[in-house]
């Protein structure tokens, strides 16, 4: 018997989970609200720590999804729980009777306009990490014209209570170091500064990346948050910060400032969560059954979670999470779901 499984979100988590479940022999339906699969990965140029091209990773993910029914430009219109399954009406008119639902709604990048003191959207020479990746992909950005001094601001919309973003986004430190190196590669004459409050470089090879940035590329790391940014008459930026190692205020004129926008719970994911009646925690990400033992199960039987829908994750973590979710779905569909008579009891014991 082939169970229907609906996977919501066509980013890395959704793609990986659908590939795994397809392999297991399930009938997988993947929906993606944007016109293109790949999520944020499709917009990135290269990936930390080894700077492999994002396109390669995405290609291998997509190749593995052979046989998965994909609907792009598709969202959920309505969903209702039947006895055990979910009846899902899609915006393209199709109705799916799904035995399990996997939510891989991912994240949104923090809207850097909200940190007005950094001047994104106000000063010409301020961009975000995503803008810079787009530049690396296309080689085009009016802001980048042989910059001599470039600054990276870590933790924009992360670990910032005032902006309502308490959590660490996990990926920005490594991304900033990677992008700093790439800037030096592109513009060897440029001076590059990273303003950080802590460097959370925890993964394998991340430390190597950090040392490489310092030793081989001469990237300057300054511990201290940027206080404010103002624009000089010539369009360059005057950045004021505190160097908390030297305990002194400092200011520096830069040609380009890159804001490392952090991860925020996805807005469309939130709307979806409301449709499904799923709980979110204070940080805005979906609540899981148990953070340690059941991190891929939602609080509702039959609904699973994978990837950044349950908090910021690096790409390897997301893929591992997606595989784990696939295993969980399989276990549910083989052990709990088929036993119609004891279903309720089993859900009580094993969900």
């Amino acid at each position: 018997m082939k169970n229907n499984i609906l996977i919501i979100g066509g980013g890395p988590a959704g793609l990986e989970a659908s590939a795994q479940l397809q392999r297991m022999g399930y009938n997988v339906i993947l929906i993606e609200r944007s016109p293109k699969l790949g999520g944020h990965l499709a917009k990135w140029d290269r990936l930390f720590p080894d700077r492999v091209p994002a396109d390669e990773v995405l290609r291998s993910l997509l190749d593995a999804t052979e046989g998965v029914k994909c609907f792009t430009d598709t969202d959920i219109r309505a969903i209702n729980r039947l006895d055990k399954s979910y009846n899902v009406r899609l915006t393209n008119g199709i109705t799916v009777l799904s035995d399990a639902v996997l939510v891989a709604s991912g994240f949104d990048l923090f809207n850097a306009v909200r940190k007005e003191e950094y001047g994104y959207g106000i000063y010409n020479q301020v961009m975000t990490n995503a803008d810079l990746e787009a530049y690396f992909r296309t080689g085009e950005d009016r802001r980048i014209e042989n910059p001599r001094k470039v600054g990276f601001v870590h933790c924009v919309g992360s670990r910032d209570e005032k902006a309502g973003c308490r959590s660490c986004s996990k990926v920005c430190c490594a991304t900033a170091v990677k992008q700093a190196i790439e800037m030096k590669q592109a513009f060897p004459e440029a001076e590059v500064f990273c303003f950080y409050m802590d460097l959370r470089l925890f993964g394998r090879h991340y430390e190597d990346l950090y040392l490489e940035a310092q030793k081989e590329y001469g990237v300057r790391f300054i511990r201290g948050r940027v206080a404010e940014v103002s624009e000089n008459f010539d369009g360059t930026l005057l950045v004021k910060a505190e160097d908390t190692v030297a305990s002194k205020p400092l200011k520096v004129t830069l040609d380009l400032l890159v804001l490392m926008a952090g991860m925020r719970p996805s807005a469309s994911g939130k709307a979806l969560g409301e449709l499904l009646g799923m709980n979110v925690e204070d940080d805005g990400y979906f609540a899981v059954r148990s953070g340690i033992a059941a991190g891929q199960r939602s609080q509702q039987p039959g609904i699973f979670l994978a990837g950044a829908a349950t908090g910021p994750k690096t790409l390897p973590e997301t893929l591992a999470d997606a595989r784990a979710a696939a295993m969980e779905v399989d276990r549910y569909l083989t052990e709990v779901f088929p036993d119609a008579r004891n279903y309720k009891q089993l859900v009580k014991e094993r969900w």
Partner: protein
Amino acid sequence: MTPLSYLLAAQAEVPEVIDRIPSGFSYFVIPFTVGVAFMFCWLGVGLIRLLADIPKEDRIKFGKSLFIPKVALKNIKELFCDCLFHVKIWQRKPLLGYMHSAIAFGWFMIIILGHIEVALFVPARLNVTRGGLFYPIFYRYFVWMNPGHTTLRGSFFFFLMDFFLLYILSGIALAIFKRFRSIVLGMRHTTKPSFADRVALYSLWMIFPLRLLAESFTADLSGGSFLTIPVNQFWHFLFGDKLWFMPCWWAYSICLGLFFAAMPFSRYMHILTEVLWILLRNAGVKPNHPRKGVAEAEIYACSSCGLCLDACPMNVQKKNLKYSSVYFIRFLRRHNEKKINAIADKCLMCDKCHALCPVGVDAPALRRAQRATVNNTMPYNYAYLDASGSVQPSEPGRVHSRFAAAENGLSPESAPADSTQPCHANPGVLYFAGCMTHLTPRIIKSVEKVFKAAGVEYAFADREGGICCGRPLMLAGRTDAAAKVIEANKQMIEASGCKTLVLSCPICYKIFKEEYHLEGINVVHYTQFINELIAAGRLDVKKTDEKIVYHDPCELGRGCGVYLEPRAALSQVGTLVKASKEYDESICCGGSLGSLTLDTHDRAKISQASLQALLSGNPETIVTACPLCLKTFSEAVSRGENLEQHVKVKDFAEAICP
């Protein structure tokens, strides 16, 4: 009526009133006399202690002020308006105002009229040694009216006494009703009474019904009017000819005694201390300690009415009621250090409790003083003030940057060459943006745009960064630290030789206006400055049909009294709509840097409440004139929780020059 004429037949000239008890004393007056004597002793000792605690020059200032005609007139006006008529409450909540003035003014009149009656009819009894303390209070007990000889004058007083008693009783009835349904009188929250409050409160409720009972029992002997006489006849109808009036007079006296004995420990002490506070306040004496000296008069002047509970923006959440000014003052009275500090630090310093306080208690100032007791002694390094060169004489006409050359390996030439701004040769306008404006660069952009459009020649004092104005330090109770930055900034501004100083941050504006004492320099907020530019025809604005609501920033509105200029200017560019709370009732945006401990979650709740009030008139745009409000509202709107309509948030200058 009991025929009494035979007793008096022998007298030649028949008096209207007969002092029926020659000793002028009865045991029932003891509870009252003890209570009131205790209260006056307590008050006397407190007054002496208070005067001893205030500095000598303040004492002299206070003494002199009583004889300055202008101050004396103000004193008299405020004593009547605030203590007796409660005009401030009337203006906002008429029913509540009626209740308070009925009890205060009514009681005051009864006491005064009682004394006048004694003075007119048995003047000897005013002497303290002959019962002057209690005789006028229990006048009706001690006298007989000569029924055949009641004059118009006597009847007039009978009428007045009954009238004011009825007036008070109506107030008491409202007060009792308010205990159960305060919202009808316009109060969402009321203060939780302490034990002494309860004793005093229940005695107060009882005093006037008992007075009516006592006086009506004796009305056929000592006279009465439209209220007491019919009630007296009713008692006769019920109990027959003989009325046992002693228990009523005892109960009346006991209640009075209880009330006065509990008074010093209860909220009702304000009845007398308020007088002292008004005199001190008008003398211009300010508290410099949260508990001692003038502050003592101030905290005892608090009537614990609880109007500050509804005023406090933190109280959108019930759990924060305990941080209201009324409880702050209660714990100050009780010397509860731990709670005082926690409450003092929580406050947003929006000053709304002060603005709405019927007694004019400046609780935010007391909180600041309390913070100073803890924070002012904290060590801090001011080396950067010297390093910045601000204390060295600066070249006239040039404003020096205050930032040290970038260190930590950043090359000094990384700072742009033009780190000093040339001031206009004919010293004109100096614009000081301040830290908060620098965090909201769109304000700077808009202000400069306005200046350019109006052709204002100006110098930018802190384009390259400046020193804090000192107000945040002041709010945190760090007065000494504030004094240092004020001094440094003052030198910089005076050296610039400007004539007008324009500030775009109300936080800066308040302290520049109040603490800097810049001689010959006109300190204006940019709302005022821009409004003048428009009025003078220097700035062309285009009227649109955009619906604008203006948010009064705390420091600008309540803090500096600037309400009209921003509205006048905005009405030139759009249609102003009303907010449900505005002017001095405007709700803090929640972003205030006054609070030292309020967390972001609670702040977000306040922002939502403030937004709701602003959106009541369905505006398209919220305009504010404070960088902090702008930041907070932009954030709250972008989060968009509980918002039905989409609304833009703009700075004042942005709205004027889009």
